[in-house]
C-alpha cells in the first residue's frame, strides 16, 4: 500500500515539475465546453432537443475530456519511464509488480479533479445548472473513475509501444471516443450513422450517466445502470489488457 501511495504521489508531482505538459489537460476541457456552448448552442433550438440549456448539456463532455487527458498523461509518463530505463529499476524493487502500476494509474483519478474543478466552476458561472447534489457527487465520482479508465488505456499503449511518440495516440484516442458519442446532441438527434456508432460506444453511456447531474431526465435510473455497467466493463477489460502487457514486459 505504501508503494502504491508513493507512486501515486510521484504521478502527481509531475504537474508541478512540468507545468507546460499539464496545462493543456487542465485548460482544454474548459475551453471546449465554452467553445461548444458558443458555437453549437443554437442546436438546443432544434425540435426534439432535450434541454434549452446547452452549457449544462455539454458540461459532462468537459468532465470526461479532462479525465481523458489526465489518464493520457499517465500513459505518457510511463512511456518516458520505459524509454529512460526507470521502469526497469522499479521492477528490481521488492514490491509486487501490479502495485508498481496501481499507484500511477490511481493518481489519474486525483489528477482529473484539477480540470474537473475548473470546468465545473467556469460552467456554473456561465449559467450551467445542477439537477441535485447527490447526482453532482455521482458525476465527480464517475469522472474520477473514467480517469482510471483513461490511465489504463494510456498505460496499455505505453507498455506495448514503449515510446513517448505514442503520446498523441494516448491523448487523441480518448478525445475521439468521447466526441463520437452523444456529446453534442441527444442520440435521437444524431445522424443515423453516428447514432449507430454512439449506441455501440460504451463512453456514450458513461457520458449520459454524468449528464444526469446537469440535465433533467424523466427516467434517470434507466441511465444509471447502463452507465455503471459500461464504466465497470471498460475498467475490467482494460485492466486485463494492462495485466497481460505488464506480464509481457516483465518476461522480456
Amino acid at each position: 500500500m505504501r508503494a502504491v501511495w508513493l507512486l501515486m504521489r510521484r504521478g502527481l508531482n509531475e504537474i508541478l515539475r512540468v507545468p507546460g505538459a499539464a496545462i493543456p489537460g487542465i485548460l482544454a476541457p474548459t475551453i471546449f465546453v465554452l467553445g461548444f456552448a458558443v458555437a453549437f448552442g443554437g442546436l438546443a433550438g432544434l425540435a426534439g432537443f432535450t434541454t434549452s440549456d446547452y452549457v449544462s448539456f455539454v458540461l459532462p463532455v468537459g468532465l470526461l475530456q479532462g479525465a481523458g487527458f489526465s489518464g493520457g498523461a499517465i500513459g505518457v509518463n510511463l512511456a518516458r519511464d520505459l524509454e529512460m530505463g526507470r521502469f526497469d529499476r522499479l521492477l528490481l524493487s521488492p514490491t509486487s509488480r501490479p502495485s508498481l502500476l496501481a499507484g500511477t494509474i490511481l493518481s489519474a483519478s486525483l489528477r482529473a479533479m484539477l480540470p474537473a474543478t475548473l470546468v465545473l466552476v467556469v460552467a456554473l458561472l456561465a449559467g450551467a445548472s445542477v439537477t441535485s447534489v447527490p447526482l453532482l457527487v455521482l458525476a465527480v465520482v464517475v469522472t474520477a473513475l473514467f480517469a482510471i479508465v483513461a490511465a489504463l488505456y494510456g498505460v496499455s499503449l505505453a507498455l506495448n509501444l514503449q515510446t513517448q511518440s505514442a503520446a498523441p495516440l494516448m491523448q487523441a484516442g480518448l478525445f475521439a471516443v468521447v466526441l463520437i458519442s452523444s456529446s453534442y446532441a441527444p442520440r435521437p438527434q444524431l445522424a443515423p450513422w453516428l447514432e449507430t456508432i454512439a449506441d455501440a460506444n460504451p463512453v456514450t453511456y458513461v457520458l449520459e450517466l454524468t449528464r444526469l447531474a446537469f440535465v433533467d431526465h424523466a427516467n434517470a435510473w434507466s441511465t444509471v445502470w447502463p452507465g455503471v455497467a459500461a464504466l465497470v466493463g471498460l475498467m475490467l477489460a482494460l485492466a486485463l489488457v494492462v495485466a497481460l502487457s505488464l506480464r509481457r514486459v516483465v518476461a522480456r
Partner: protein
Amino acid sequence: MTAELRVVWLLAIRSVRQALRRPQMLAPVVLLPSVFLVANTGAAGRAPSLPGFPPVPAFLDFELPGIILLAATLAAVPGGTALALDVERNFLDRFLAAPMPRAIAVTGRLAGIGLVGSLASVVFLLAGVLFGMQLQSGPLGAGLIVVLAGLTAAGFGGLGAAIAIATGKASYVTGSFPLVFLLLFLSSTFFPAELLRDPGATIAAGNPLTWVADGMRGPILNPGVDLQTTLAAFGGVAVVGVIGAGSAYIALRRRLVATA
C-alpha cells in the same frame, strides 16, 4: 538571394519530412480535424434547418472549410514541436552559426508548416468530395482554399515557432493548442457567426479567422470567386501572418541577444 531561397526551400522540405516521418506528429493535423468532422457533421447535421442558417446543400458543405482551417492552424503544433526539439538538441544554434541571414531558420520552418497546412487542405478537400461535398467554384476555388490554408498555417506556425524559440520546450508548444481552439470557436469556423451565442457573435465579427473561414467557404458554396470575401480572407491571413511571423522573428532576435 537565390542561395537563400534554396536554403529556405531545403528547410521547408526538411520540416515536411520531419512531419511525414513521424505519423504521430501528424495526429493534430489529420486525426483531430477528422474527429471534429465526423462529430460535427453527425451531430449538427440538422443545423441548416435553424432560422438564419445560410442556404447550403448539406451541413458538410458548410463545415468542411472550417475543418480545413482547423487543420491549418493545428499544423503549427508539430512544426513548433519540431523546432523546439531543434532548440533542445542545439541544431538551431549550429544553424545560426552558418554564414547566412539568421531569419532564414524561421522562414524555412514557416514555409514547411505552410506546406503541411496546404497538404492537409488537399486531403480534406478530397475527403469532402468523396463524401458528397459540392465544390461549386471548381479547381480555381480549390486552389484558393489550398493557398489560404497554407498561408494560415504559416501564420500560426509563427506563433508556434515563437513559443518554441522562447521556451525551447516542446511541451509548451503542445500546451498552446487549446488557445487555438479558443480563437476558432469565437469565429465562423464551425457555425455561422450570426448564430453564435453572445459574446461569441460579437467577437467573431472582428476575428480575422472569421474572414479566413468565410473566404474558404465561398468557393465551396458559390460558383465563382467573390472578390470582396477573398480580399477579406487574405486580409485575415495577413493579420495572422504579421502577428505570428513577427512574434517568431522577435523571439529569435531575443534569443540571439541573450546568447551573444
